[in-house]
């Protein structure tokens, strides 16, 4: 840590007296990923306290959910994490299916894996590109959006929408893939694979990027669990948990037979890490760099899963199956299900009372819990590090405010 002390502005200028000041960051600040307002209590360059103010995008989606049938709420889940709408659709669909004890066809199951993992790649690309922007480099953003656009093209072909899909729905999917889609998807993967090395060159190993992220915003394993963090934020702190492997049987059954390793550091190594750039010397487990790196590994992991899903989907004979009716009755009882969304564990809680309309529809947002740890991470950091920490949490305000 010698290098940190040498150029730490906190200790060089003893003769400059600074006053405590409140700095308002947001809600329209570009690096707050939406409309998040942070009130920073600063002393010179050092932040002593951060208070997030949320709710600017609040539209009480849960109340809307209590007035619509379960399938009609699917479009509202799109608008929660609008960067990974496919995964949101899946979360709610599975929660309803859990309560209804409904099983989808084998073909629909593999198609869901295929679509959800493509959605994860798209979301992580935005996370990565926007993180570059937060840290002052513009090019990775363009590189990331170039590839994401191709995924959106594929989604558009499948369901007609580019952002809010409502494609995965209760009881299956709204339509099967159009002819030739699989070939175009394979062509995309073929082209995308070498591009990942460009990302590593642009960001992961970039000296400035490493300097800005390594050792910054260290989140301990215990604190991550205590605050209910999930997804790459949790795994970046070395907690080996991925709902696709550890979750409830209705969700893990979807990934039954798929081979993947959870992207988490074990004994100082990430899975298959000889193929990736080495962890920089300054990086500490749980810092911004590790959270970012876990996402990069998940892009490769998802690509692998998409390939496996293509094989299985293509070998499935028989129909895809029809989704449930819009007015399908929900049995009395309650069910809670968490799925592994790109941002973390998204939980949906549903209480049925025998009518098609849920008595209670609840969305437990992963970004909400991930953001709640921010004040701990930012205590004592520099003002310039705040965007680096917020960006590394990869939050999306549509999901936090609901």
């Amino acid at each position, binding site marked *: 840590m010698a290098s940190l002390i040498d150029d730490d502005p906190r200790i060089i200028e003893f003769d400059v007296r600074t006053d405590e000041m409140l700095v308002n960051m947001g809600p329209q600040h570009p690096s707050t990923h939406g409309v998040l307002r942070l009130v920073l209590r600063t002393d010179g360059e050092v932040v002593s306290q951060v208070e997030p103010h949320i709710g600017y995008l609040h539209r009480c989606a849960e109340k809307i959910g209590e007035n619509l049938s379960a399938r009609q709420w699917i479009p509202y889940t799109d608008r929660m994490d609008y960067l990974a709408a496919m995964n949101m659709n899946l979360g709610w669909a599975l929660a309803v299916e859990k309560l209804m004890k409904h099983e989808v066809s084998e073909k629909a199951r593999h198609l869901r894996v295929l679509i959800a993992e493509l959605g994860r790649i798209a979301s992580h690309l935005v996370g990565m590109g926007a993180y570059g922007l937060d840290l002052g480099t513009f090019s990775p953003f363009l590189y990331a959006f170039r590839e994401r656009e191709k995924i959106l093209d594929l989604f558009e072909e499948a369901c007609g929408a580019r952002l809010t899909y409502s494609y995965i729905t209760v009881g299956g999917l709204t339509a099967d893939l159009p002819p030739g889609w699989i070939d175009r998807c394979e062509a995309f993967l073929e082209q995308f694979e070498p591009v990942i090395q460009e990302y590593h060159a642009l960001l992961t190993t970039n000296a400035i990027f490493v300097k800005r992220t390594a050792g910054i915003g260290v989140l301990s394993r215990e604190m991550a*669990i205590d605050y209910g963090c999930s997804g790459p934020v949790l795994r970046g702190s070395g907690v080996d948990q991925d709902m696709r492997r550890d979750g409830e049987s209705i969700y893990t059954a979807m990934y039954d037979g798929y081979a993947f390793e959870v992207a988490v550091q074990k004994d100082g190594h990430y899975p298959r890490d000889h193929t990736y750039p080495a962890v920089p010397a300054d990086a500490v487990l749980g810092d911004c760099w590790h959270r970012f790196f876990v996402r990069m590994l998940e892009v490769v992991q998802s690509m692998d899963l998409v390939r496996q899903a293509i094989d299985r989907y293509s070998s499935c004979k028989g129909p895809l199956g029809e989704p449930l009716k819009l007015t399908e009755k929900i049995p009395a009882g309650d069910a809670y299900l968490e799925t592994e969304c790109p941002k973390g564990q998204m939980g949906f809680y549903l209480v049925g009372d025998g009518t098609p309309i849920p008595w*209670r529809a609840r969305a437990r947002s992963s970004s909400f819990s991930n953001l*709640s740890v921010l004040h701990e991470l930012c205590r004592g950091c520099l003002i310039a590090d705040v965007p680096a920490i917020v960006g590394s949490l990869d939050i999306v305000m549509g999901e936090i405010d609901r």
Partner: protein
Amino acid sequence: MRGPAFLEKLETALPGAVTGRNLEALDPWIEVAAERLVEVCRWLKQSSDPRFDALECVTAVDWHEPDPKKAAKVTWQPRLELVYHLWSTSARVSLVIKVSVPRWKNDTPGEIPAVPSVTGVWRTADWHEREVFDMSGVDFTGHPDLRRILCPEDWVGYPLRKDYEQPLEYHGIRGR
């Protein structure tokens, strides 16, 4: 662990704390009286096997039917039900705690019921309890900073209550 053996240990450690249970449900749950919630949570986090080290979600369900015709037919008791979803990162199992409280304190509409806060057990509860306070109107006693989180601080009413009425006007902005 989900079987009776686990519950027996809880019963021995804290006699009478668990007032209801359903371990056959989709998500096995136990019911706890509001006064004993914190000690049960602390036991589940620190002493039980497995340890429930993560609180995933806190939410409230309002059991109230505003339509008098329908209300005559319902089979459940009107109440406010708090639901805590617990998770064990080591054993990878979940448990649900349910706490029932009256919809209004002393049956006086507007006076929100009180439930002890579990922020001292899991930090997740901090924001989640603020959200439940904001949306469903529950006073979490012992919460370090209980104020609205999603709605503006001067908002009136609790939107997720079944008898909530949307305001007609808010600072010159028309509702409805």
